[in-house]
């Protein structure tokens, strides 16, 4: 009976286990930050994503059944059709309002402007949400094999959703507009003043910053992508202004924007596949470098 010896060896095994686990976690952390093992992660991610896809489909059906009439399948289909039609009409209405405001400028570019830009879109289902409480992202069921790659803009029938952050063969991760790290060059529909939309903060609202003090900003104004920065196509609806923060002491005014998209109940999105983001990394370098 050598209890002391056993205790020592137990302690040793314990510390070795902790060391190995913490060491492995740190190693994976470094390797992920250097994007060295993306292939291996995708190998694990893909089969689980397929299971998530299956589960999300059943969950959506169940959730829809709970939300609507329980006994009429036909009614469910009709509701879904009407909902989509309603979304499309809302978007058309917003587009028409936008056209009204832009009429003067569009006169010069009349031949150039089209309400339905020639953008190719891939329809994708939302299969999971981010596991982290710190980030706002979605996982969709389309990946590299469907032509979806990192950097592609993502929208829904209601407006802009986000951007493809990570992509594997059969699934992709979409960084939402409401995420802390998200920023989008935006402009107001009426006054055409530009600003930068940032995610984060309480609730699901967005903050539009860097709007000049001279620009008239009113509650209810439509906010769209400006196309500046080259990350997103111009004129995709984002949301409407619900509050304006203006101080004469400040150089710029800010506005709180309610996104047009309900991110909590998003089931399908469109990935814009033929928009080429402009490479602006050349401007990151300092002169003389």
């Amino acid at each position, binding site marked *: 009976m050598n209890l002391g010896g056993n205790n020592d060896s137990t302690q040793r*095994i*314990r510390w070795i*286990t*902790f060391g190995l*686990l*913490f060491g*492995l*976690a*740190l*190693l*994976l*952390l*470094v*390797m*992920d*930050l250097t994007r060295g*093992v993306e292939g291996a*992660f995708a190998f*694990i*991610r893909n089969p*689980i994503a397929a*299971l*998530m896809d299956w*589960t*999300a489909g059943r*969950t*959506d059906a169940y*959730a829809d059944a709970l939300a609507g009439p329980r006994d009429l399948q036909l009614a469910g289909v009709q509701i879904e059709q009407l909902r989509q039609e309603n979304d499309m009409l809302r978007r058309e209405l917003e587009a028409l309002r936008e056209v009204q405001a832009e009429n003067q400028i569009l006169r010069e570019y009349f031949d150039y402007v089209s309400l339905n830009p020639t953008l190719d879109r891939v329809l994708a289902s939302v*299969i*999971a*949400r*981010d*596991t*982290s*409480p*710190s*980030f*706002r*992202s979605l*996982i969709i069921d389309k990946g590299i094999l469907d032509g979806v790659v990192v950097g592609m803009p993502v929208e829904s029938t209601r407006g802009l959703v986000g951007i493809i*952050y*990570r992509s594997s063969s059969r699934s992709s*991760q979409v*960084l939402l507009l409401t*995420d*802390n*790290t998200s920023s989008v060059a935006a402009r107001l529909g009426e006054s055409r003043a530009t600003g930068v939309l940032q995610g*984060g*903060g*309480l*609730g699901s609202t967005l903050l539009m910053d860097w709007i000049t003090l001279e620009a008239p900003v009113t509650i209810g104004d439509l906010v769209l992508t400006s196309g500046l920065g080259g990350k997103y196509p111009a004129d995709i609806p984002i949301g409407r202004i619900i509050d304006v923060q203006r101080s004469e002491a400040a150089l710029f005014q800010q506005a709180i924007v309610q996104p047009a998209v309900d991110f*909590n109940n998003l089931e399908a999105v469109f990935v814009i596949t033929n928009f080429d983001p402009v490479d602006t990394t050349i401007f990151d370098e300092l002169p003389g470098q």
Partner: protein
Amino acid sequence: MGLSLYLALPVMVILLIIQTSVLPRFPLWGVVPQLMLLAAVAWGLLEGLEEGALWGFVAGILSDLFSITPVGLSALAFMSAVIVVALLYRTLPINRFVLPVILSLVATLIWLFVYLLLLRLMGFSSSWQQISDLPRLLLVHGGLVLPFYWFFYGLLKALRPRPIEV
């Protein structure tokens, strides 16, 4: 520990799918609980430090694979939380009802603190949303840990051979 790993993987994959694909459509009191953290905590309380750390590691890696978070970060936060509460559990008198609930709350606080700290250190900004959700998350975790704890307790009892009296 070998058997534990084979058990941890399917359990965590199932919980991951529920957490990411089901619960966002049916949030509990407006929040999505960290089911994998609760499972690791419950297992750690029943089976000790090393086993808890291993389950925390598996939970963290799987969690990060489906998040923007760099892979490994949640594993560090989960393991820290589970190890601390498993250590506390050993020093306190055995109680299978109140103690798991209290320790799940402690684990949630430690996990969130370590997680936000590591995110900060790595240059990520964090949202205030989770701070405002914290009281509800604590209550939901406190309510959910007991089913996990008792399920694993029953599972371990069923899996382990009973001593035979001769």
